[in-house]
């Protein structure tokens, strides 16, 4: 057999090119590992400092008064977060879904584009600016309240819910709409009884993501509820209620409150990470189901 006149092995210039290739691959791997390690370091260091301060009292008791104010728990902040985020969700969910229906099923292409742009731009506004907006519009004249905080969070949540909902509404195949319309069902009933129910899973996960995001917000609440005044320990939305995030922000510079800050941070982080991860996984599965 004759010797082959060429070789398929790497040599010379190709070897250099492959080394560059491998180097770049290694750098990309390094970047990914770095990001994951930072996540691990943050989570582990918050957890290791936070867990030790956790006990039942922390969740079930309000802040202690008097001689030992570092004692007690953050029940009032948990209640406040639930109330403020809950009301914000009640405002943002219907609005977001309605906007999504408009954009995906009813609007002319031009108005749909304008609405989408408005949502995306609102989503990009720094949250503290939204806080200041609600401050000048509501709080400056009516004083602080949990409701003002809910309003700011709702403004943040609407674009998130609307965009997520729109995405799943558009995944509902048009053949479903046609099937219903061909039965002599009017458009609006088709939308409400076929399109929206098909997209329900996506709407719920989108809303869950928005809730996780809102629960972790501090900046938009700064001037609106509780900070600078004494927080109410009740659950009346007209009172300035405390939230988990505001509590952490206040505790971190008070001597003696560090352990509580860590415990609150750990609790909040767990809630936000678990819900947003769960919602994202559910969303991915849902998208596959509808899209496939």
């Amino acid at each position, binding site marked *: 057999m004759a010797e082959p006149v060429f070789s398929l092995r790497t040599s010379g210039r190709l070897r250099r090119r492959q080394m560059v290739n491998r180097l770049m691959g290694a750098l990309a791997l390094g970047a990914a590992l770095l990001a994951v390690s930072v996540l691990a370091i943050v989570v582990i260091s918050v957890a290791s400092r936070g867990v030790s301060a956790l006990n039942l009292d922390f969740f079930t008791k309000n802040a202690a008064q008097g001689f030992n104010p570092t004692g007690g728990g953050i029940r009032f902040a948990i209640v406040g977060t639930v109330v403020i985020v809950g009301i914000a969700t009640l405002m943002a969910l219907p609005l977001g879904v309605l906007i999504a229906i408009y954009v995906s099923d009813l609007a002319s292409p031009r108005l749909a584009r304008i609405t989408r742009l408005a949502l995306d731009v609102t989503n990009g506004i720094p949250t503290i600016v939204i806080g200041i907006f609600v401050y000048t519009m509501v709080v400056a004249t009516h004083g602080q309240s949990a409701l003002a905080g809910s309003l700011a969070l709702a403004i943040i949540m609407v674009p998130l819910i609307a965009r997520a909902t729109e995405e799943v509404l558009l995944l509902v195949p048009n*053949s479903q709409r046609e*099937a*219903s*319309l*061909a039965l*002599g*069902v009017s458009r609006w009933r088709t939308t409400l009884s*076929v399109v929206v129910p*098909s997209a329900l899973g996506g709407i719920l996960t989108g809303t869950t993501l928005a809730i996780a995001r809102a629960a972790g917000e501090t900046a938009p609440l700064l001037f609106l509820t509780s900070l600078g005044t004494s927080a109410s320990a009740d659950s009346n939305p007209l009172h300035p209620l405390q939230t988990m995030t505001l509590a952490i922000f206040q505790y971190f510079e008070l001597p003696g409150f560090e352990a509580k800050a860590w415990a609150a941070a750990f609790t909040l982080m767990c809630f936000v990470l678990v819900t947003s991860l769960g919602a994202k996984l559910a969303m991915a599965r849902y998208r596959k189901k509808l899209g496939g």
Partner: protein
Amino acid sequence: MEVIKTKIDLGRERLPTGEQEAVFEARDVSVYYGDQRAIDKVNIDIYRRLITAIIGPSGCGKSTFIRTLNRMTDLVPSARLTGELRYRGIDLYGPGVDAVEVRRRIGMVFQKPNPFPKSIYDNVAYGLRILGMKKDLDERVEKALHSAALWDEVKDRLKDSALGLSGGQQQRLCIARAIAVEPEVILLDEPASALDPIATSAIEDLMHDLKRDYTIVIVTHNMQQAARVADMTAFFGLNVTPEGSREGILVEYDKTEKIFTNPSDKRTEGYVTGRFG
């Protein structure tokens, strides 16, 4: 109830044999999408309780035409219809005619089975519930499934998701869903094109049964299918305008037998003998 009465009326008044009543009368019907004409001046009478097949090459506007019959074309904002299209004497596109009401009476089944992601039962019950035909819901659902020759296969799993059915079963479910609301006409837009031969023949058998109660219009690209099921066949052809755009025209319309054995138009003959298209 008005709906039921209509049904009984239909049963009673058959015209004397030999003389068929035209359900649809199309006069110079043209459809435009924006500036482009999709079909040009179609004149056709579609007869009651017959199966009328529409055949023709791709792009000849046969889907567009069948969609004009229940005003599904309304869903395309740029679509425009000229000429006159009468349904039992009423101008379908006349003033005051409600497209939703039109579609209630003239049902449609699509190319790809499109059951809702609901249970088998809820798929059939969907239209009934929304249209307020809630009395005897169970019986109506069962009757529709019987009529669609699906009852025996699904009676034990009515609560299961419709998406678990085979393609052919899904398509028959879609037919059941359409006939549950008691339409007068059923339009079938290539109902078997996504199905295997066995499922296809089940659908064809079903059409024969449905013919007793309904006027059926079917678009198909399968000539054998048209020859097997249709009483009347309309052949749509492609016309290339001097400007180079393609539009559909009705070339020939006659008894199916005539179309397939002795067509009067050369173009029809070419198509059915497989010389072009």
